[in-house]
């Protein structure tokens, strides 16, 4: 843990060396997500509600997804550059060091600029909580925290799968972006909006609905209380991800020096 914090501070310091460009890329990230949220505001302004959700409920939904993806991207970004680590044979060096492999890969790269989005998500959360979208109880507060942290874990699992694929293909697969960048874009609405088939895929295949759609039903008093604890079940997704990672490591043979 101490080592991880050390790496974190190194990455933050190196990002802060070019202060102007650090803030500009923060601004860039913020503008993109603000635009996405504005599109929700505009459409809701025209239609009033969608699928029975109001604007303040949707902003809660988007804040949760935003916080989860940004946390995952900020701390799990090292895995995104994994294709490069493999093709430049840096992975050999990593394997020689007496520390867990995954830990080292994660420490290779972090994205502190994503913290700007976490901040934005926090502001939106405060607003959504204050606007009376949910009648709050301690249990619901706990569910909200679970949604964010389990959400970040599931997104991290998706990144991990993406990295594992590069063990076999040596090259990033663009089609996987559907599950990497897509959810941030489409998670602005509860996944149930997109119809049953999409909801089923995102419940049982890639369990993103378990951290977003189902617990939201509980928060908005539209479903039973056990829906609220489904985010915990989503953590099961990490098991196949971990297995795939181990399979990938075993399959790995160096690209040479």
């Amino acid at each position, binding site marked *: 843990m101490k080592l991880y914090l050390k790496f974190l501070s190194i990455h933050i310091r190196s990002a802060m060396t070019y202060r*102007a*460009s650090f803030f*500009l*890329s923060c*601004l*860039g990230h913020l*503008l*993109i997500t*603000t*635009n*996405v949220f*504005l*599109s929700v505001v*505009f*459409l809701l*302004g*025209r*239609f*009033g*509600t*969608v*699928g029975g959700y109001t604007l303040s409920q949707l902003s809660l939904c988007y804040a949760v997804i935003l916080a989860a993806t940004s946390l995952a991207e900020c701390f799990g970004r090292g895995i995104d550059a994994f294709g490069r680590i493999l093709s430049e044979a840096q992975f050999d060096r990593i394997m020689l060091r007496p520390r867990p492999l995954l830990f080292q890969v994660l420490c290779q790269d972090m994205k502190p600029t994503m913290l700007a989005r976490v901040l934005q998500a926090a502001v939106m959360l405060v607003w959504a909580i204050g606007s009376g979208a949910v009648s709050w109880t301690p249990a619901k507060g706990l569910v909200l925290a679970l949604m964010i942290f389990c959400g970040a874990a599931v997104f991290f699992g998706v990144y991990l799968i993406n990295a594992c694929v590069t063990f076999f293909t040596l090259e990033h*697969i*663009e*089609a996987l*972006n*559907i599950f990497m960048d*897509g959810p941030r874009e*489409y998670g602005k*609405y509860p996944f149930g*909006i*997109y*119809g049953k088939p*999409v909801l089923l895929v995102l419940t049982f295949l890639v369990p993103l609905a378990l951290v977003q759609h189902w617990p939201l039903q509980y928060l908005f008093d539209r479903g039973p209380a056990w829906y609220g604890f489904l985010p915990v079940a989503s953590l099961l997704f990490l098991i196949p991800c971990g297995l795939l990672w181990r399979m990938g490591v075993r399959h790995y043979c160096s690209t040479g020096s």
Partner: protein
Amino acid sequence: MKKYWSFFKMRLMACLQYRGAALAGMSTQLVWGGMEILLYRAFWLENPERFPMGMEALSTYIWLQQAFLTLFVIWDWDYDILKSVKEGSVAYELLRPANLYGMWMAKCLGTRLARASLRMIPVIVVSSLIPAPYGLRLRIPPETFGVFLLAMVLMLLVVCGYSMFVYALTFHVTDPNGVMVLSVAAADLLGGAIVPLPFLPEGFRQFAALTPFASMQNVPLRIFNGNIPLSEAPGVMGLQVFWAVALLAVGCGLTRSGLRRAVIMGG
């Protein structure tokens, strides 16, 4: 003219090498388009009267947007050009007996056309097989199609003119990143990339329509899906011509004045 044509061809050929990437990109585009349509379907079911166009017209807009994505996305900057200005290797380019602005323009057009030509056909074929109102409606009157093609050409000039304007700006500012970040955000919102312009609220929509970003994908896509009737086409296309000319002129001017001031260091 011939030398610019060969720059254009070189770029086209280089981009056509990456067929695998195009195929992968295509499947992404199909899924994204599908999700987008499912989303608007939810709004449509909620209240069809508040829909500013028919569901089929909207589906057509979204599928065409996915098919031609690489033609008009602003964020597809040519980092080679930006780097060459920043690091000074633009000096080599200046030695060539060709106009710098013309060369860049040929590169920009070539890259965009090559990427789009690979991606558009499968997206168009698959999406036109989807049953109405969620598929791409290809049957339109031939005169509409002609106007659409003309609007596409104008759109391409506006998009490349805008990119060129940003490249030329690099001669004058040390870090073009701020302009780039703001352009991408503005184009997303004002150009109808996230939400088609007719869905924007009153007032804001009229403002957006005047910006150069609305002269990009917004015009040809809405002519094709019938949202802009042919009687209104001359007006919006006139605006396209204005922005194309203005951006090309400003970009050319900035390049010329930038080159006059530029001092290349080193030997």
